[in-house]
């Protein structure tokens, strides 16, 4: 994300200028030690730590939008880096005996940095809670970024399997029913061909938002594959699951989706099905769900043929 990096250019320049001024101050006041007197162990330890902190700063700035949390974390890490940098300079530049300011430069920023980092992490924690609230119905108590779907703001099939594994155990332990509903868009391939794949992607994104609106707080929506969405419905029996599935189908059919290019109405409809977990593992349950969907689609195919 080079764009994010650009946002933080001033911050980085400031840090580099400060580090440079410290270097120049040292060179002006003291004399470089000959390499024979260098303590390589200390240089590697202190210089290496400084470098690692610099890497943290880079990752932080690359990955985060600007804002209070980013600024606090950046300032904290910068103080840490500065302290370690001065520490490293001490190893290669000898200052006249009795110099005190370098000790201040070395030890001063460290506690300030830790305080700033603590503040930053506290607000980061608050931010995470806020984001988690926004992720409601899209993740449940477990986050794994590698399982995020690349297209829609949902998780994919692997995350669903993981969640399903846990939910099945929990349902069994609590003797509560657990159901799955599946929503499959009709004629999605033709839509892609007619309106372009970009439009198809937008339809999937829109439909995923629409489905989220129609779910309860405890439900989890994932994109299984292609134009198939699966909802995990805890504490839900088969009848209720079927009701929810039909409501989701009705919501898709009622959506007045308009294409991005010309704004014409793209009619959408979906086939839905639901199954309740019996003595299933995640794979067999998903397989039964898929069969139920195939049965639900049969009349549709017969009608078209």
């Amino acid at each position, binding site marked *: 994300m080079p764009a994010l990096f650009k946002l933080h250019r001033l911050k980085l320049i400031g840090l580099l200028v400060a580090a440079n001024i410290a270097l120049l101050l040292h060179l002006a006041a003291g004399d470089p030690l000959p390499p024979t007197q260098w303590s390589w162990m200390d240089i590697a330890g202190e210089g290496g730590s400084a470098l690692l902190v610099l890497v943290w700063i880079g990752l932080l700035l690359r990955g985060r939008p600007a804002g209070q949390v980013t600024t606090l974390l950046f300032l904290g890490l910068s103080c840490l880096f500065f302290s370690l940098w001065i520490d490293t300079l001490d190893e290669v530049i000898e200052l006249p005996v009795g110099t005190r300011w370098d000790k201040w430069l070395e030890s001063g920023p460290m506690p300030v940095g830790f305080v700033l980092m603590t503040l930053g992490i506290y607000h980061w924690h608050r931010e995470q809670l806020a984001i988690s609230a926004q992720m409601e119905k899209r993740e449940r108590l477990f986050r794994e970024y590698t399982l995020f779907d690349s297209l829609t703001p949902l998780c994919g099939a692997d995350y669903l399997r993981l969640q399903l594994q846990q939910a099945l155990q929990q349902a069994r332990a609590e003797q509560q029913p657990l159901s799955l509903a599946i929503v499959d868009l009709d004629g999605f*391939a033709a839509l892609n061909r007619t309106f372009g794949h970009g439009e198809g992607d937008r339809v999937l994104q829109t439909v995923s938002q629409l489905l989220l609106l129609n779910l309860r707080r405890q439900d989890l929506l994932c994109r*299984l*594959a*292609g134009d198939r969405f699966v909802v995990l419905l805890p504490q839900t029996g088969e009848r209720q699951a079927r009701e929810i599935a039909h409501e989701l189908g009705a919501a898709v059919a009622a959506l007045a989706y308009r294409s991005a290019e010309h704004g014409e109405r793209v009619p959408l409809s979906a086939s839905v099905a639901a199954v309740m977990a019996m003595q299933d593992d995640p794979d067999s349950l998903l397989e039964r769900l*898929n*069969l139920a969907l195939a049965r639900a689609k049969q009349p549709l195919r017969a009608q078209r043929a």
Partner: protein
Amino acid sequence: MTAGWYEGDTRFIPGHYQPGVLIDLALGRGLDSHRVLRGTGLFHDDFPSGTVRLSPQQFLQLIANAWPLLGRDETAFLYGQRLLPGHYGAASQALAQAAHLQEALEVLVEQQALLSPLLKPRVQMDEGQVQLAWLDACGCGEVQRFVLEASMAAVASACHWLAGERLPWRFEFRHARPRHIEQYWAHLSDALRFDCPRDRMLLPREWLHRPWPKGSATAARVARQEARRQLDTLGMEASLLGRLHDHLEALIREPLNLERVAAAFGLSPATLKRRLQKHGTHFQALLDQARLQVALDLYESRGYTNDEVAAYLRFNDTTNFRRSFKRWAGASPSALRHVLGLVS
């Protein structure tokens, strides 16, 4: 027979054909073109000119780059659905105007170099069904699964589009049931079988001649002639491996060895051996593959017994044949016939 085929390093695949489809998919998902083209020696800025030509090896490298970046599970299917009929000149037009499935399959086989340069489609028909098997044309190596998933999705999706309805293809794969089975459900069909002796798609024969609404007989004929002329200009219509496969299958009942086949292709045995090595294969593997295809067809279409197949393939005794068959297919004939539902 001196030329007329392409090899792994023949630069003939137009950059804006299949590679362009994959690059567009990657760019559409926000990927950097440099990362996708790394190691191919190509630059994205050259593509719009329409003069860039890739060798199968470069194309395979492109796939190997893009596959993990785009996600290993779904990408092949998304890419495959965009492949056919495609925008590959007259070959694509001939496909888009096909009057029915049989004509479309004929075009696919005839224009394989342009429509499916990496996998060779092999079509067989008997009284009951049509089968479209896919054979490695260029040594696809580690991206074989990607290319296979994409090719099957391409044909299934194009048939769906051109026929105006979903054709009830059944799918068989040599690989084991994958973890991401849901992609196969959503993009191919529920009728899937794994651990099979070949990678193929099957359809009841009655679908062969159902008229396709988008078809146009005259336009299709003209486009097909034009496409043939284009192939002639290109000077190659199949890969070396594909050509060899056809040659071996045609002469499967004759005594076959490296020397004779090399001579038929106008090459020295050493040269042929080296070229096969370049594609990650060897003569015996190709011969085994051809024999396996023929043997399976005999079992399935003609209901031959082990003795009959062994005799057809000029094996002296059935035990010997069964041992060889197990080496080609990874399972004994009886086990395979059980899998195929041909138990007598």
